[in-house]
């Protein structure tokens, strides 16, 4: 069960691999099948359900490519 998700701004990505290096659950890799508007190989998520929303990828991204969302449970009053 994913604890969060990341949103990738593909055209800002320069394919530097720093996020894939720091991802503790190893779910990021470069999508070798495509290139973005600027000719770089952009980032993709291989197993989104394993994301722990630690934001390490976004912290280390030099180009502010990644937005991280953490899922929060509905407030319940029990």
């Amino acid at each position, binding site marked *: 069960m994913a604890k*969060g*998700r990341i949103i990738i*701004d593909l*055209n*800002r990505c*320069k*394919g*530097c*691999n*720093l996020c894939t*290096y*720091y991802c503790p659950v190893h779910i990021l890799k470069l999508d070798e099948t495509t290139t973005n508007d*600027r000719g*770089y190989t952009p980032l993709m998520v291989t197993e989104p359900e394993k994301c722990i*929303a630690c*934001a*390490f990828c*976004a*912290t*280390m*991204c*030099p*180009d*502010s490519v*990644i*937005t*991280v*969302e*953490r*899922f*929060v*449970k*509905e407030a319940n009053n029990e």
Partner: protein
Amino acid sequence: MNSKVIYEKSKGLSDFHLSYCPGCTHGIIHKLVAETLVDLDLLERTVGISSVGCSALNYDFFSCDMQQAAHGRAPAVATGIKRVRPDNIVFTYQGDGDLASIGIAEAIHAAHRGENITIVFVNNAIYGMTGGQMAPTTLLGQKTTTSQDGRDAASQGLPLRVSEMMAQIPGATYIERVSVHDPKHVNKAKKALKKAFDIQNKKLGFSMIEFISTCPVNWGINPKDSVDWAVDNMIPYYPLGVYKDKTVGEK
């Protein structure tokens, strides 16, 4: 299920694509400066001074006011702006070619006068923009295009430790060296920047934060390995830490 955004592109950065090479940690440092200014609510009254070097185009990247300075003269321009508009927050963003070599006199004298400005100094041990020549901060034995057998102390001298030198200056208030090689150190670096801008906001004097950065293209290694190279080679010679903090014990 609801979701909450916990990390997004800082409002302190514009929508321009950064001009840096892939994997260059300049981008992380830009992000930290922008996030810090937003967090401290200083962005609206900040003036940044961009230098010459890879960071020469950063007037496009920050969403605060920016001014371009001649090579090495960013602290002098910052001094002028700060003296005319003392309520504005003024920072310079300089690389090691700009600050440690051609602009060392400006930096030293700005610190010596105790100007109430913040210098963001990026040390990547090489001249990045001009094609990887030897900088004053190039490590012993490091190969560059102008030291092809590695830097040699006998002919080229020893690498310059800027933070240690600036810490000797009586006028300087806060000097710290940080690194951005992993998420933990990025957070530490952000705290250092916050402290520096806070000192300036409280009009306590000169602050400088030195960042250990990488230059994958000119070091000739990929971004992942260059981060490790910085940890293995740069940090032993340029130890991290607070070199001067005049605010301690003066409450």
